[in-house]
């Protein structure tokens, strides 16, 4: 004789659920910094190798008050912004041209494919030779570093524009320039922003590299100089400022993206 059983349905997807753990995020970060502080205070590691977080903060504040940090920051920001604007602007123009006009694609794509893999730092000596030791060579290397991800991302975005939307625009009377401005550019915007993010990372890297050669100002100079003087706390201040720059640019681009692409939920 068999007995009937009653088996409840259980939620089989439970182990796939992901939670936010907001508190853990904060605790982990604060805990790590506190551990570092404790380690430094205990005196197990010499301050020369690992300055304490509080010491770095104090040094940073002193450098702000003396105006030293702001001078370096201003010099770096100027190079970053100029290089980013020139490289980004050119990248978008080249990306759209190469993506839309097949003649430009035939000419431009092999060139881009051949020059893209070159580490841009390797071009710095050449740029210094061409443009001199001054600001132009620093700005140029940043511009180059931003140009490639921007051009390639814009090109990809342009090529991915929905052909149906292009046809719809043409069906409603759009000519070449209208199609580029009203369909292709907005379609490419998400890819353009992804390019801006990639470019921001590269720009920071090249900035520091460029500022380690024949300059008297900038965060890169600050770090190199502090290293030479074995002023480890000052060196750490420079690194923290760079990390803040990275976080800020990422956040700023995110805000800008939400403003520029309001149709994305």
């Amino acid at each position: 004789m068999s007995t009937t059983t009653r088996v409840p349905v259980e939620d089989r997807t439970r182990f796939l659920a992901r939670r936010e753990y907001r508190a853990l995020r904060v605790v982990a970060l604060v805990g790590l910094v506190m551990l570092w502080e404790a380690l430094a205070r205990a005196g197990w590691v010499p301050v020369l190798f690992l300055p304490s977080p509080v010491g770095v903060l104090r040094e940073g504040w002193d450098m702000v008050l003396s105006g030293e940090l702001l001078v370096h920051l201003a010099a770096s920001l100027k190079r970053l912004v100029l290089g980013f604007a020139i490289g980004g602007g050119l990248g978008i123009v080249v990306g759209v041209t190469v993506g839309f006009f097949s003649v430009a694609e035939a000419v431009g794509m092999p060139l881009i494919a051949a020059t893209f893999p070159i580490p841009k730092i390797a071009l710095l000596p050449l740029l210094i030779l061409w443009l001199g030791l001054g600001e132009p060579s620093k700005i140029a290397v940043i511009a180059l570093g931003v140009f490639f991800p921007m051009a390639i991302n814009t090109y990809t975005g342009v090529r991915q524009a929905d052909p149906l939307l292009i046809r719809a625009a043409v069906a409603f009377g759009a000519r070449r320039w209208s199609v580029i401005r009203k369909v292709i550019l907005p379609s490419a915007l998400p890819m353009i922003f992804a390019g801006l993010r990639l470019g921001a990372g590269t720009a920071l890297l090249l900035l520091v590299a460029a500022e380690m050669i024949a300059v008297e100002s900038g965060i890169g100079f600050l770090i190199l100089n502090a290293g030479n003087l074995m002023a480890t706390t000052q060196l750490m201040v420079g690194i923290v400022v760079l990390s803040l720059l990275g976080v800020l640019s990422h956040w700023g681009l995110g805000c800008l993206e939400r403003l520029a692409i309001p149709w994305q939920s």
Partner: protein
Amino acid sequence: MRVVVEAVSKTYADRTGRPVSALSAIDFTVDAEEFVAILGPSGCGKSTLLNIIAGLLRPTSGNVFFEGVPSAARSITATVFQEFALFPWRTVQGNIEFGLEEAGVEKRERRRRAHQHIELMGLTGFEARYPHQLSGGMRQRVGIARALAVEPAVLLMDEPFSALDAQTRQLMQEELLTIWERTRKTIVYVTHNIHEAVYMADRVIVLSRRPGRVLAEVPIELKRPRVEALLGEPAFTHAVERIWGLIKREAREALRE
């Protein structure tokens, strides 16, 4: 305006480069203010034909003409697409104004005409929404408003309701008929749905499967305005059965492909 399709053929190369004939010697006319449905099994080239009429695809041979008094202020054709083809970065209002912008209509007049068609299509209150915030039915309302706003002489519709669920489709068909009774545009309406074609059109042009040829032109003698009650009438059933008889074998063969 009258649409005259003369000996239109379309051949294109498939992936291996072999020529495939999509349309073969298509001849028909659509009179001014007439509602004509083009019907055929899947892959009969009916959308290709509509694209040729819209000037979005060049026929391999043959011609399409529009006959009538041209008007500088109006577009000849406007298209409503199956997948809506709304611009995701434009609001409802922006989408409806697109064709007017391209026609060089000045801003105040654009606003006025957009507003008028927003009201006509029951989109009031949704002007500032983006397409992804709308249901399928509302999206296609925007698609129709965008087409009507340029005041075309001929409205081309490419399976406009086939992406919608059955209930929404039924309601949209009725709405379109109501608007058509008022505006009396020439409509070329592509569909694979026999009931839809018979319910809405004055005449159904039945295409064969690839290469598409005109199998028959079936006049629909149902009185207007078309109301749901007509769906049970013998004239409706006869027309449906006649067309199904014409394409049943074609559809079955298409299924085996």
